[in-house]
């Protein structure tokens, strides 16, 4: 509790007030598989009726609304399709230093997943840059199992120009 001078000269009291709701959300089959995969160090996507692979995996087809069942194991590196810079991270964000928010299209997927990129500075962020998963030290089946993405060193498997490069939709 702190205080400051009020209009009448009396001090007005002030204190932190936290309102918190710890929701627990059931996942359904597709997201259950996705989060189980993250815990085990595997990233899963879901193939839709038009052949596109979505990641994170949806339970229903975005076009036809039919149930989806074809899980696809994806690479753990990919490409930034769009991004923005976060200069002053807040307490609950993935990193405690400035980072990029990016949509990352993992190798083998056709859609982007939102996550943090630990690029160090804004100058190192670019659309089309290659990034790879940095796994959390301890994983428990949450989005934070991917601690963040980090720029892939030049010449890495899957980086532009390397034989394993897979930029085409699966």
């Amino acid at each position, binding site marked *: *509790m702190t*205080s400051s001078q*009020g*209009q*009448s000269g*009396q*001090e*007005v*009291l*002030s*204190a*932190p*007030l*936290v*309102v*918190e*709701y*710890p*929701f*627990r*959300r*059931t*996942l*359904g*089959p*597709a997201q*259950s*598989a996705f*989060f*189980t*995969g993250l*815990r*085990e160090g*595997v990233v*899963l996507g879901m193939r839709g009726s038009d052949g596109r692979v979505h990641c994170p995996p949806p*339970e229903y087809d975005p076009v036809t609304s039919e*149930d*989806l*069942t074809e*899980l696809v*194991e994806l690479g753990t590196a990919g490409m930034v399709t769009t991004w923005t810079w976060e200069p002053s991270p807040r*307490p*609950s964000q993935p990193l405690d230093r400035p980072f990029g928010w990016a949509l990352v299209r993992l190798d083998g997927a056709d859609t982007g997943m939102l996550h943090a990129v630990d690029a160090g500075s804004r100058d190192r962020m670019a659309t089309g840059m290659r990034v790879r998963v940095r796994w959390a030290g301890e994983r428990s*089946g*949450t*989005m934070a199992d991917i601690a963040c993405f980090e720029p892939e060193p030049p010449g890495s498997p899957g980086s532009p120009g390397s034989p394993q490069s897979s930029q085409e939709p699966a």
Partner: protein
Amino acid sequence: MTALTLPPALQDVEPVRSIVVPAGLRYRFTAGQATSRFLRGIATKRILGERCPACGKVYVPPRGSCPADGIPTTDQVELPHQGTVTTFCVVNLQFYGQAMEVPYVCATVLIDGADIGLFGLVQEIPFDQVRMGLRVEAVWVEDDQLAPTFESVRWWRPTGEPDAPYDSYREHV
């Protein structure tokens, strides 16, 4: 639920079925002058209400104005530490952040001389004996723990007096 075929590496592991997704709002609460006066009183073991000069009603904790007349409350009124349970709720569910063991009782206590009920816990009585009209008194924390916070009143306990007649608090239910 649709049957999915998991990759071999995931077939024999315990599936993740749910995730905890906390939603938190971090505020700084500024009490304002009237409530600051009240909280300072609490820190010295006094319950201070404020009276509306037009309708005469006593508000506790005071917000500095009368919601009925829309004018500032002008008179500070020191209230006794006794009151009447006007309504209550038995809490049976355990929830995140809960400090009390279930079941316990939350109540609205109408302090003698006040015109608005105050929220508090009722203890030192079996939960199934708490009732409307129960006469209660404030139980404070130890003197060296007193602070400008509602938590300085630990809870309310029965005084042992006969129950207050319904008509004495019917306007406040």
